[in-house]
């Protein structure tokens, strides 16, 4: 099977959004985790910031990342004509 230029562009855009979302995932998990002690003095609704992120903030961001990806890709499928038929 021969891929068209359009197909390749679809894959490039998929890789780009995947990369950006993984970068967000990495920052909220590992960068904040690494600097947890340094960020301890910041408070957010009564919590020290790193504790808040570990217990809630990062989790919310994970849920949003996955929600965004699903929506973005489902739209991208339509745009590039690679969506599945109605089931």
């Amino acid at each position, binding site marked *: 099977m021969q891929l068209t230029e359009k197909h390749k562009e*679809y894959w490039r855009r998929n890789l780009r959004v995947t990369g950006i979302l993984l970068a967000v995932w990495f920052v909220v998990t590992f960068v904040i985790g690494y600097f947890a002690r340094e960020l301890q003095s910041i408070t957010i609704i009564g919590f020290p910031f790193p504790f808040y992120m570990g217990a809630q903030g990062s989790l919310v961001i994970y849920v949003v990342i996955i929600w965004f990806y*699903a929506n973005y890709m489902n739209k991208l499928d339509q745009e590039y004509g690679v969506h599945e038929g109605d089931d």
Partner: protein
Amino acid sequence: MAAQSQSQFFSSLKRYYSFYTGGFVAFVIIVAILEQLGVPNKILGYIFLAATVLLYAGIGVMSRTADVSEYYVAGRRVPALFNGMATGADWMSAASFIGMAGTLYLSGYDGLAFVLGWTGGYCLVALLLAPYLRKFGQFTIPDFLGARYGGNIPRSIGVFAAILCSFTYVIAQIYGVGLITSRFTGLEFGIGVFAGLGGILVCSFLGGMRAVTWTQVAQYIILIVAYMIPVVWLSVKHTGNPVPQIAYGYVLEKVTAREVVLNDPTTPDGAREAEVRAIFKQRQEAAEGKLKALEAGGVTYLAEEKGKLSLAAADLKAKPDADPAAVAAAEKAAADYPVDAAAAKKAWTAAANGAKAKTGPIASHAEPFAGKDQAAIDKKRKNFLALVLCLMVGTAALPHILMRYYTTPSVKEARKSVFWSLFFIFLLYFTAPALAVLAKFDVYTLLVGSSFSELPSWVASWAAVDKSLMSVTDINKDGIVQLAEITLGGDLIVLATPEIAGLPYVITGLVAAGGLAAALSTADGLLLTIANALSHDVYYKMINPHAATTRRLAISKGLLLVVAVFAAYVTSLKPGDILFLVGAAFSLAASAFFPALALGVFWKRANKWGAIIGMSGGLGVCMYYMYMTYPFFGVNAPLWWDINPISAGIFGMPAGIIGVVVGSLLTAAPNKEIQDLVDHVRYPNLEGDINTKAA
């Protein structure tokens, strides 16, 4: 059913599960009424456990099937929302339900590694694997490895790794089942294991994935309700706010303030804590002194000391006005004296370590990586981050979870389904830290400082059940409870929350049913993964590709039974520590599967030899490190860069990635057919596409 359209199916599912939830609430109310009528707690416990297991069995029987696609992937028509709930139950195990809040209670910020690791991993599932595996659309994870890399070797390594990590994990689950059944019904642990196993089997045996899916949805509803009710109640009690996740920031501030008071010897409460710590310090030194003397004197020292004790007891007895209690204590001390040097060393080391744990100041709940110097802090931080990464990547590699994304009707639904999965998991995981803080507040402010003559009733009742979960001893004999005098097991937090919150026993029964649902649902998914790897990948794909459908299913069901009984047998031997078993399963999966799966989708050049070297190398390094460093195996080699054995995957993963890359580049690129397969999984729909869908 086949004639039904997907949207009709979805709306009838919603109707069924709404009725079901209503029925379950009614059932809880009936049990609550029975309690008010004076039915004893033990009977209520039986009713709860029996009713829920029967319910799962009922769903299992109703979903029985003889169709291959129904048996392996629930007919591939599970809507995203319901697959999300099923994945949630499949995912959340006894460790999440019962253990997590306790771990957070005991280790504060550092325990958040589990919360982060077990949720953030879904980002990797969503972005790197789920949609592609769904497009590939066969039955098992080794199926993908077999097709993508060609030949039976990658598939066989996949089967071996799938069985290894699922089996390690399932033992931890069955252990949880045994623990809950034995605690709430009074059955013996071994019998509890087999009784729980019956519950697991009725469901997966008849209907495979289809039955497991619909049972898991039911189990999710029970477990989330059971987890939330007591926490909301506790939150109202302490803050007046029914949303514990928001309210506990304010409670955490108070806990932190209380920690400062208890650590400050100039305050009255702090002074009493310091007094108890000093006593523990003396005990630690005494035990260490004995250890030193043992090293110097050996067996002679032991004999002398034992002689002295017997003599003292005899002297005491000979006195005319001897106090019988003191005599009995002295005689017991002589009789309990360690028999040989090994026993003495073990007993005294345990005593020294136990006392030492109580000598330090209280660790602050919200402080990350607390340590006495920079080196200790760095070590903790390193292990925290390594554990988070292992748990996340392991999440995106555990076959029983990835398998669930084969069951959705389309790629689009698979993507949405990961969102629902994480959403339903998130509900529990962002509640657990709140529960830990609320429980800590209760212990620090209400229990500490209360008098030994009027302990809260939940303390007394749990101390009577199990000393390792709850015990308080008046060390400094002042009649008042100090924090250092309390020994509290992590599992207590979830199990005792209803009583701490002052709720009736019916809620305790509900929590037990929730814990059981969590353990059973995960065990179901895991056993099915193991049996499918053996029956589908080994028997059908490698031994007898012409086997008839009925024979394939018969073999699958037979194997399920054998694996289940074997797992229960291994569990009844009580091997190792639950948390380590669970962590080990994640590290193993992360090292063995993740590199080959992700690179299989994103790097066309990855080939058979790369996969073989990467998977066996990753798995090998991970297993080697665990074997060398985990105390259970007795080698106790020095750690590499201070990384704990639970995070062995941190070495296995890079080994796996390097193996795939180097192995692939040294050998020829995969053929056109396999490159087409990669394109096939990358695009949800391609014109002139090949078809990899299994019937």
